[in-house]
């Protein structure tokens, strides 16, 4: 679960990390009050969306008057910001963070992430901070240092290595020591999957300062991170994907005309691959999960049919935990409830598949046990 920059900075402040004085606004009326509260004559206005690359897309602006801040807010509030990290629809801007100005001498890149390869939490740092960090990673990997934590203890040696790579002087190194220890504590206490500061700046007064903050919380840990869970901003998700989540379905919309309903993420991807293999185009990824109930199957049909491009629906169920007869009943109930007006091709295999097929047949729905036949038939009907 992603957090906004302003939310991330609230948490940073709580952990004693250096962040800018700032106020978040959600309407034009709040602009003037926010600027006055921060003080000064110049401000930085930053559109709050769950994506990076905002600066390159006009989502961050240095403003020299309250009117300029208001113009920026008017330009973005309620609009979508498209960056190279979003899809083509962009992300809705419904809040703007206004901050005091920071005098920047140098920019550092610093992040922490759960790393599958090393089976640890990696801390990644580079003196080449800013927007081109991925280029640096590709072309000058020696300029990036990664250290790996197996638990919430960061050693002095690891801290020294990072400071050395970043060429920090004694005063800066002392601050970095403190920042790294606080970030590590934060990462483990808040069950994070990702923490990124890009850039962490060295100010003209030599102080280290977190100019940006991105946090992603492990979804599996939200049950014990209730306070963070409440910060979730649903507007940052595709509305169909958000609806899907409410019903424990995993849905991603795609450009195609064959709706897919599958149990299991791997098989759902495999089904999409198979449709493509036979010359068709899947309209979506949809995993109904291991404990698909009648209600969830009905919701899944609704989601798929919400996409006007869908010409045929391929249901591919390999029953392990889920019983095919329950799925069959769900399909029939859903078709009656939702009013499905496109052909539905069902492939049932595994747990109680024969019983499931019999139930479908009684309602005049044909089911196949071969995925090949089911995929070919779907592709044919979608043409």
């Amino acid at each position, binding site marked *: 679960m992603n957090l906004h920059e302003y939310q991330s900075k609230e948490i940073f402040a709580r952990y004693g990390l250096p962040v800018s004085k700032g106020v978040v606004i959600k309407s034009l009326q709040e602009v003037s009050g926010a600027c006055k509260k921060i003080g000064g004559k110049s401000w930085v206005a930053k559109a709050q969306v769950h994506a990076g690359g905002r600066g390159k897309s006009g989502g961050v602006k240095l403003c020299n008057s309250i009117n300029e801040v208001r113009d920026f807010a008017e330009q973005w509030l309620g609009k979508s910001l498209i960056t190279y990290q979003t899809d083509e629809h962009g992300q809705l801007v419904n809040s703007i963070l206004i901050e005091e100005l920071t005098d920047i001498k140098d920019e550092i890149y610093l992040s922490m992430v759960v790393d599958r*390869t090393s089976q640890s939490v990696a801390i990644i740092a580079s003196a080449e901070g800013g927007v081109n960090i*991925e280029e640096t990673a590709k072309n000058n990997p020696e300029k990036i240092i990664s250290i790996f934590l197996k638990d919430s203890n960061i050693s002095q040696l690891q801290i020294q290595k990072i400071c050395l790579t970043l060429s920090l002087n004694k005063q800066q190194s002392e601050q970095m020591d403190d920042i790294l220890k606080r970030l590590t504590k934060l990462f483990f206490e808040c069950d994070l999957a990702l923490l990124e500061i890009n850039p962490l700046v060295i100010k003209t007064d030599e102080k280290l300062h977190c100019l940006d903050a991105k946090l992603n919380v492990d979804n599996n840990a939200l049950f014990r991170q209730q306070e963070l869970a409440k910060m979730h901003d649903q507007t940052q998700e595709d509305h169909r994907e958000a609806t899907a989540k409410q019903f424990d379905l995993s849905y991603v919309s795609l450009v195609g005309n064959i709706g897919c309903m599958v149990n299991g993420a*791997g098989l759902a*991807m495999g089904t*999409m*691959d198979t449709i493509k293999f036979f010359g068709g185009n899947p309209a979506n990824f949809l995993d109904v999960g291991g404990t698909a109930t009648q209600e969830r199957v009905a919701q899944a049909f609704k989601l798929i049919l919400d996409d006007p491009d869908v010409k045929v629906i391929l249901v591919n169920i390999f*029953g392990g935990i889920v019983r095919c007869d329950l799925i069959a009943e769900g399909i029939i109930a859903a078709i009656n409830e939702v009013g499905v007006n496109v052909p539905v091709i069902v492939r049932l295999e595994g747990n109680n598949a024969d019983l499931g097929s019999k139930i479908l047949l009684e309602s005049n729905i044909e089911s196949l046990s071969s*995925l090949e036949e089911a995929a070919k038939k779907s592709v044919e009907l979608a043409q």
Partner: protein
Amino acid sequence: MSILLDHSTRIIVQGITGSQGSMHTEQALSYGTKIVGGVTPGKGGSSHINLPVFDKVEEAVDALDANASLIFVPAPFCKEAILEAVNADIKLIVCITEGVPTLDMLEVKQIIDDKDIFLIGPNCPGVISPGIGKMGIMPADIHMPGRVGVISRSGTLTYEAVKQTSDFGLGQSSCVGIGGDPIPGSSFIDILKLFESDTNTDAIVMVGEIGGSSEEEAAEFIKDSVSKPVISYIAGQTAPPGKRMGHAGAIISGGKGAASDKILVLEECGVLVTRNLLEIGKTTYDALNS
């Protein structure tokens, strides 16, 4: 023979009295699996599905001489459940539960890494050795005793691969779903090692998917250390790149993780990759009969 689960495996089920625990214990028993008891804190001394229930794993191990545990407890309690099994000297732990916090698994992993323990999962279908028994949620009837070892990160996709090898009359020595979480108990490599030294396994099917780099690491291992034919399918060849947040994921993966990257590395290392999901069985059959 088989790997992990054989005739000497005596299994307890942690979370046996829950709905999932009950259902899958019954199914495993009817398949002939040697489940000897269960553990549910607070229900010790009772009996469930004609099996004795204990409060603690240690008590169950002492009373029943169990050496394996199948875990169905809810995600918030999985870390403690796994560690309890570890401390009771259980050598094979299979955790089915999905949704275990990643940092819990990081902690568990540090503890089991220097011990002689196999942890499979979490978030996986489990382990089955056809004809011997099953520790998991897979439908038993698609399996048949045979020559192919199956390893997979996915659940239902594993069943697809299994069924195809059965349809070709090859059968399976054992099937292991390692799960798709960021920090799994066992990796592809851990299981490849076991299949390589298992005399009853003649070929290995490895089902991977996009994300992470465990398939690439497995490919290097196969090149150097696996003599048996390895057949692979990678799911997600047509998956579009997802929305993302920040750069850290891209930096740490070196921009890799797409199906095409994985297929390339696997093929370079001598793995027989099928791009068609429906040809896993045929590719395996051909590899064994060429």
